């Protein structure tokens, strides 16, 4: 049993489990599944700076911070107790492409050759982590939600603005991964 759990889980196990998060949060407390709002609550709690957008009672939304705290712990537990000892398996074409950028370590879920502290000193690492993170934070809030709030909760409730947002997420991702990222990694 534990051996089976340690293997990577197929999409048809993981997807339905993620889908069930929507009714689970509604049933246990009338909460709508969405994660990027946690970043806003952190701003409201720590540095509201008299900005109107952060002047609200963040304590009413503290459940969301417990939820993301749980995600952190879940990552910790999975990595410590349930980790897959094998390197991650990806498409040979991707392996080939990444080899050209000097990425060949598949032992972690992230390419640790570029995602490490010392690479922050170089433009490449700075673009990947600092600029990338900034775009995630700014973009999700501007869009009013991220993959969870729009692509899962919004689409589950058949909201067309969420469909527009999801399509834009994908378009942005396709442009970056295929047209821009190769130049950054090179």
């Amino acid at each position, binding site marked *: 049993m534990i051996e089976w759990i340690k293997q990577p889980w197929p*999409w048809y196990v993981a997807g339905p489990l993620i889908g*069930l998060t929507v009714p689970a949060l509604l049933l246990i407390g009338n909460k709508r599944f969405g994660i990027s709002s946690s*970043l806003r609550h952190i701003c409201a709690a720590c540095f509201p700076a008299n900005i109107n957008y952060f*002047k609200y009672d963040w304590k*009413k939304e503290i459940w969301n911070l417990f939820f993301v705290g749980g995600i952190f712990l879940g*990552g910790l537990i999975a990595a410590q107790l349930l980790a897959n000892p094998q390197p991650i398996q990806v498409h040979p074409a991707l392996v080939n492409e990444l080899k050209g950028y000097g990425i060949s370590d598949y032992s972690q879920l992230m390419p640790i050759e570029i995602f490490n502290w010392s690479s922050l000193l170089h433009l490449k690492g700075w673009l990947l982590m600092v600029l990338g993170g900034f775009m*995630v934070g700014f973009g999700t809030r501007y869009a009013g939600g991220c993959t969870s709030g*729009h692509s899962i909760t919004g689409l589950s409730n058949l909201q067309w603005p969420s469909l527009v947002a999801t399509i834009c997420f994908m378009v942005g991702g396709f442009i970056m991964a295929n047209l821009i990222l190769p130049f950054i990694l090179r």
Partner: protein
Amino acid sequence: MSKNIPDNDFEIRSLDATCINDSELVHPYWYNLKYLITGILFGIVFVKAEIISWFRIQEMFRLQSFHMYGIIGSAVVVGAISVFIIKKFKVKTIYGEDIQFEEKKFSIGHIYGGLLFGLGWAITGACPGPLFAQIGTGISVTIVTLVSAIAGTWVYGLVRNKIPH
């Protein structure tokens, strides 16, 4: 603290937000532990299905794998069926509260912000949820990405009134 809360608290909290707290009930803080536990289970799925992997995100955006599409697609199907059942049978929460759904209003930000997030998603290999799980798995430098995402959210709050919606 309470005297600083404006009268239009709910309106401000609802701005550009999907997951606002609709519950009127007030509970002791330890009731929040059930969200912690839900988050833990969710985080384990994130790691075990490799959703938080930068490599898997690259595969997705190069159409080299069905994995991520299968996950998002089946999650939406399960979520939609659940929402349908909750609406149809007017299912209540475990505390007997009505569950309400809100219609989303379209804003041009869905397009601009969506594109910007998509660009960032493909670089970092993470949406906001996986960022927390990536830190948990021990890749400590993703703390920088998270702090940067918080900074991005903060700057959005700062310029919100100056950009089109």
